[in-house]
């Protein structure tokens, strides 16, 4: 009895399945051929001409189309799907029907002059590793900046802050700077046995040739005398004013920064820079605007005479 009931159950389950699939199954003599990559279906079954003539043409064609489309959709739904941005897409395979190309396949381009030379010499391409942000150096740089701000001295250059990996040039530069930062500018510092003296440091001065352009030399000597003679101070008003304004701005920003203190340190940094830049720009423009009028003494109101 139990066996019978199991058989019944199975039969019932099959029947249910069949009913479910009834709506999407289509009976055809020959199976269709599909090219899902192109979403094409080929139906090779013979079409019943009598049926075509009996029925209305459009209805016959429509029912045929519906059946074929149903089979095509069944085939498409068999393929894997995935969810892309809240939309369900089906992944299509490569198209299988051979279709002619538009243009012939591209010809390989001829090697360039460099490529030929590299091949000849056997040079291989070397990949440069990307520059990586060095955390240790960053900390060191910030520490030195803080010290500089506290003691109001300048921060040393890039190569002089110790980093994890220092290249040959960095070390050489650091050694040179350390050597020349003595009271006598490194002239009496001991050198290693085989170390050569660096002969290309020092301020470069260009001298005029002893016997050269006579008129030029004469003109220069006369100008020098003229400057010594004149009673006016050699002062460029514009430059002086700008320098003063810049100094004032710097003091102002430093004062504001100190006011900001711990709370506004992050924001203050940006604002300080922005304000300083804006202030500098404004100051300069203002200075320039004011410069000429102050220079000219009687050009205030040209109209009135």
């Amino acid at each position, binding site marked *: 009895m139990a066996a019978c009931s199991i058989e019944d159950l199975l039969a019932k389950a099959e029947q249910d399945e069949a009913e479910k*699939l009834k709506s999407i199954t289509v009976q055809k003599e020959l199976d269709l051929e599909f090219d899902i990559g192109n979403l094409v279906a080929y139906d090779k079954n013979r079409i019943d001409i009598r049926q*075509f003539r009996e029925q209305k043409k459009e209805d016959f064609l429509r029912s045929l189309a519906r059946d074929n489309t149903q089979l095509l959709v069944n085939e498409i739904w068999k393929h894997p799907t*995935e969810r892309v941005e809240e939309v369900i897409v089906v992944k299509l395979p490569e198209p299988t029907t051979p279709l002619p190309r538009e243009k012939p396949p591209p010809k390989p381009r001829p090697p360039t002059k460099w490529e030929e030379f590299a091949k000849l010499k056997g040079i291989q391409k070397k990949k440069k590793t990307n520059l990586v942000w060095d955390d240790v150096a960053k900390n060191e740089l910030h520490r030195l900046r803080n010290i500089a701000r506290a003691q109001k001295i300048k921060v040393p250059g890039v190569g002089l802050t110790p980093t994890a990996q220092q290249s040959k040039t960095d070390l050489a530069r650091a050694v040179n700077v350390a050597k020349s930062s003595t009271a006598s500018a490194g002239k009496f510092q001991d050198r290693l046995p085989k170390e050569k003296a660096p002969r290309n440091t020092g301020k470069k001065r260009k001298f005029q040739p002893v016997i050269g352009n006579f008129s030029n030399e004469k003109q220069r000597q006369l100008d020098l005398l003229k400057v010594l003679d004149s009673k006016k101070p050699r002062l460029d008003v514009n430059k002086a004013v700008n320098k003063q304004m810049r100094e004032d701005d710097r003091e102002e920003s430093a004062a504001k920064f100190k006011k900001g203190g711990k709370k506004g340190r992050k924001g203050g940094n940006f604002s300080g820079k922005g304000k300083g830049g804006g202030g500098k720009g404004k100051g300069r423009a203002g200075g320039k605007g004011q410069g000429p009028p102050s220079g000219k003494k009687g050009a205030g109101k040209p109209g009135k005479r």
Partner: protein
Amino acid sequence: MKQYGGVIKPKTKRAKRFLDNRAPKLTENVKNAMIMKGGNTSMTVTQALKDIYALKKPSAVLYKKKNITRPFEDSTSLEFFSKKTDSSLFLFGSHNKKRPNNLIFGRLFDFHVLDMIELGIEKYNSLSDIKSSKCPEGTKPMLVFAGDAFDHENEHKCLKSLLTDFFRGPVVPSVRLAGLEHVLHFTALEGKIYMRSYRSLLKKSGCRTPRIELEEIGPSFDFILRRTHLASDDLYKTAHKQPKALKPKKKKNISHDTFGTKFGRLHMQKQDLAKLQTRKMKGLRKRRGPAAAAVVAGETSLKTTEVE
């Protein structure tokens, strides 16, 4: 440096990009179609051209002016136009007493005519005649070819390939399931070809795959096959040649058997089997000293007794 074979050598980056887009590539662009009118056209033909342009938008250009040429006799102006607009498909509509309501579908390879097929329109219902909501422009259509003529006859086979090329749209790796709306159905029967365009509605069925219901939208044509101009076999072969780079790379040392199981092959160095590390069994170790000698003596005495 790439050699730009044309007259123009690009002077700006934009021009260079434009020319590179039109140059021969490994994976090609969507084929553009140019739709043009002949010396004399009827209302049916102009309307039909407009409808097919609507189906093929945006990868199609519709020319308004009439072109007095005959594609079957002289194809130079077609080739010139294709070079200008970078199109490799064309549709030429004309009308005269001998061939009323004529449409010539064709394609080009390397800007020369590959093949073309002339179809006559016997019955035509335009997009505007059939009142229903249309599919959005640019949907990739599903194509169905019904009838054994498409399999047996050479000209029909060519027509099948041409129509697939014409209407298939861009080749995409995946398609939105809900967006499979447009169906183009071609039936070959009694020397005639019926083209119908439907909108598919995906209805709920008991299972995952939906049930399809069709609603006719677009233009419907009853074509009759007229002249054809097919290319020679070796021209077809050259046109179908795919570049080697596109072939999927075969992974070495991997093979499949008939059941579909994947087998891999490992290559090892030569091993000295005498020195292999195996499980150590204490009892099987060789014993040294007097115990070994006693055993040996016992064995030999046994042998001598047996001989006797």
